[in-house]
C-alpha cells in the first residue's frame, strides 16, 4: 500500500507533495500516531448505556463546541447600540461553507427586527414603471442559487500596520464568509421596471436604522447581482439582511446591502458617506482611490494558525481558504520557509468563481522554527502580493482591501503567531 509514496519534500522545510494524502500516505501519519500514543483501555461510555436526548425543532451545535463563536466583540461605546462587527472563527471551520450562525456580521446601527409581511422593496428612479415588491411577491419568481463569499473591505486591514498585530485567523481575517445564496436575479426585476437608457448606476439602500446606502454600477446589477432571500437553504439570518439582501458576487462586502428596501436608478453615483469617507483607499501623497469594487485574490492558512498549538514533530496537513472577487482560484502555493520556496497545494472541489476555495498540503514538521505562508493566484493571472509589494504601491494608510500574504511563525515549542517575514 505504501510502495509508491514519495516523502521527498517538494519545497523547503518539509513541504510534501500535495497528492501524498490522496495516494494513501495518510497511513504514515496514522502509523506514527498509533506508535506514539499510549495504549488505552477502551471503555463503554455512559452515553452508550443510557438513552440520549429527545428531538429538537431547530438543531444546535454540540455543547462541547461552545468556544466556536463569532468575535471578538467591539467595545460597547453607546450602550448596546450602534455600529459594530464580529468575525467568523476561521480557525475552527473546515470546507468552504460558513454556517449561518457563524457568518461574519457588520451593521451600522444595529440589526433591525423586520416583519417580512410589512417589508417592501422599492425600485424607482430612471425606470419606466416604479414598482414595489413584497417578500411574498418575490417568492413567486424563479430563483437561482450560487455559492459566493462576502468579504468586508476592512478585512485584514491590521496587516497594513507597522508591526505584526497579535491575533488569530479569526481576529485578523474573519470578516469573510461564504454561503449558498438563493434569490431572484436583480436583472429580472429591473427588466420588469423598464430601465431608462440614461441610467448608469443604482443606489441600494437598507431598511436599518442607518439607512445604509451605496452606489453600484448598473452593469453589475444586470450581470450577476441577486436579491437574496435564502442563506444556506434557510431564510437569511437577521444579521445578514433578513428578509432580503443585495448580493454582488466578488464586490466589497459593504455594497451587498442588507435589509434591502430601495433601489434607485440614477445617472451618477450619490457619493454616500459609506463610499466617500469610508471604504475608500487613502494612497500615497493624499490621493484617494474611490469605487475600487472587487476584492482581489487572497488566501490564509487556517490550520495551523494562532491558537492552534502544534503537538510535536511529524506529518500535518496545512489547510486554508483562498478566494478572488475576480473569478476562480487558479492555484494556491504554500511556503514553510517564509517565502524562499513554494509548493503547490491541492484545491478541494468544487472550485467556484467568487467563492471560498479550500486548499491543503501535507507537511512534515521537523520541530524547528518555520514560517508558513500561502499565496493565491486567480484565473485572471493576478497573484496575491507580498507585504512589501502591496505597501510599496499603496503606502500603509489604505485601511481597506488589504490582501497581502499572511505569515504564521511556528516556534520550536509549536506555538503559532502572526509575524512579518
Amino acid at each position, binding site marked *: 500500500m505504501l510502495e509508491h509514496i514519495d516523502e521527498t519534500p517538494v519545497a523547503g522545510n518539509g513541504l510534501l507533495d500535495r497528492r501524498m494524502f490522496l495516494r494513501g500516505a495518510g497511513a504514515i501519519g496514522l502509523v506514527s500516531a498509533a506508535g506514539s500514543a499510549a495504549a488505552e483501555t477502551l471503555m463503554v461510555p455512559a452515553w452508550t448505556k443510557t438513552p440520549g436526548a429527545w428531538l429538537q425543532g431547530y438543531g444546535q451545535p454540540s455543547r462541547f463546541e461552545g468556544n466556536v463563536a463569532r468575535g471578538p466583540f467591539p467595545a460597547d461605546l453607546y450602550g448596546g447600540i450602534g455600529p459594530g462587527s464580529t468575525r467568523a472563527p476561521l480557525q475552527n471551520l473546515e470546507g468552504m461553507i460558513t454556517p449561518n450562525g457563524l457568518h461574519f456580521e457588520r451593521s451600522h446601527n444595529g440589526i433591525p427586527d423586520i416583519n417580512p409581511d410589512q417589508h417592501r422593496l422599492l425600485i424607482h428612479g430612471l425606470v419606466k414603471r416604479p414598482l414595489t415588491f413584497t417578500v411574498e411577491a418575490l417568492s413567486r419568481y424563479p430563483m437561482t442559487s450560487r455559492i459566493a463569499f462576502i468579504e468586508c473591505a476592512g478585512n485584514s486591514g491590521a496587516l497594513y500596520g507597522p508591526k505584526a498585530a497579535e491575533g488569530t485567523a479569526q481576529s485578523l481575517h474573519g470578516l469573510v464568509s461564504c454561503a449558498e445564496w438563493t434569490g431572484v436575479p436583480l436583472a429580472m426585476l429591473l427588466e420588469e421596471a423598464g430601465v431608462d437608457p440614461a441610467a448608469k448606476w443604482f443606489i441600494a439602500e437598507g431598511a436599518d436604522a442607518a439607512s445604509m446606502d451605496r452606489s453600484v454600477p448598473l452593469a453589475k446589477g444586470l450581470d450577476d447581482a441577486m436579491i437574496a432571500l435564502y442563506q444556506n437553504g434557510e431564510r437569511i439570518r437577521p444579521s445578514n439582511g433578513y428578509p432580503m439582501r443585495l448580493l454582488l458576487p466578488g464586490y466589497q462586502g459593504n455594497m451587498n446591502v442588507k435589509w434591502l428596501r430601495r433601489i434607485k436608478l440614477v445617472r451618477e453615483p450619490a457619493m454616500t458617506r459609506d463610499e*466617500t469617507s469610508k471604504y475608500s483607499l487613502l494612497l500615497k501623497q493624499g490621493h484617494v482611490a474611490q469605487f475600487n469594487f472587487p476584492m482581489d485574490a487572497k488566501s490564509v492558512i487556517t490550520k495551523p494558525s494562532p491558537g492552534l498549538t502544534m503537538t510535536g514533530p511529524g506529518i500535518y496537513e496545512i489547510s486554508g481558504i483562498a478566494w478572488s472577487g475576480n473569478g476562480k482560484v487558479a492555484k494556491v502555493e504554500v511556503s514553510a520557509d517564509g517565502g524562499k520556496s513554494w509548493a503547490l497545494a491541492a484545491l478541494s472541489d468544487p472550485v467556484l468563481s467568487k467563492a471560498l476555495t479550500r486548499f491543503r498540503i501535507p507537511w512534515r514538521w521537523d520541530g524547528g522554527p518555520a514560517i508558513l505562508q500561502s499565496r493565491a493566484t486567480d484565473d485572471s493571472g493576478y497573484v496575491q502580493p507580498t507585504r512589501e509589494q502591496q505597501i510599496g504601491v499603496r503606502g500603509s494608510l489604505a485601511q481597506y482591501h488589504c490582501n497581502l500574504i499572511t505569515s504564521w511563525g511556528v516556534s520550536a515549542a509549536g506555538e503559532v503567531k502572526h509575524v512579518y517575514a
Partner: protein
Amino acid sequence: MFTRSAGFIVALLVSGAAVAAESPQRGQPITAAEAAAWDLTIAPDGVGLPKGRGTVKRGEQVFAEKCVSCHGEKGEGKPADKLVGGQGTLGGDQAPVKTVGSYWPYATTLFDYIRRAMPLTEPQSLSAEEVYSVSAYVLYLNGIITDKAVLDAKSLPRVKMPNRDNFHIVYPAKIQ
C-alpha cells in the same frame, strides 16, 4: 389536422415569448410621487435636497442638543467619529486624521448622511432646517464656510470641500 398544427405553432411562439420573459411580473406599480416618500438620496449636484434653509447659529444649538454626547463639544469626536480638523495630515508620514473637513469630498454627503442616520438613537427625526443647520455648523467648525453662511438646496452643493480634488474614481478599473 391543419388547424391543430397551426395551433401548435402558435402555442410554441407564445411559450417562446414566455420563456424569454420568464417573469411572473409581481411588482406593484407605484407613482413617482409615492416613491418620493422613501427617497433619501441627495446627489452631489443637489438633486433631492428639500426646501428649507439652515444657519450656523441654529446649527450650534442643534449640535449642542443632539450631537455633542458622541462627537464632542467642537466635533473632536469620541466615541463617535472626529468631525473637525486634520486638514493637511493626509499626504505626509504622520497618522492621517480623517474628518469632514480633511477628508470628505462632497458637502451634500453631510446633509444626506445626517438626515438618514443621525442622531444614532433617533435617525430621521431632524427637520430639514435642523439638518441644513447642523451641516452648516460642522462646515463652519472646519473653516469651510463663515459664521454668516446660510445653507439651502442651492448653496450647499456649491460648497467646495478642501479634499475634493484628491478623490479619484477607479471603476471600471481596480487599483494595484
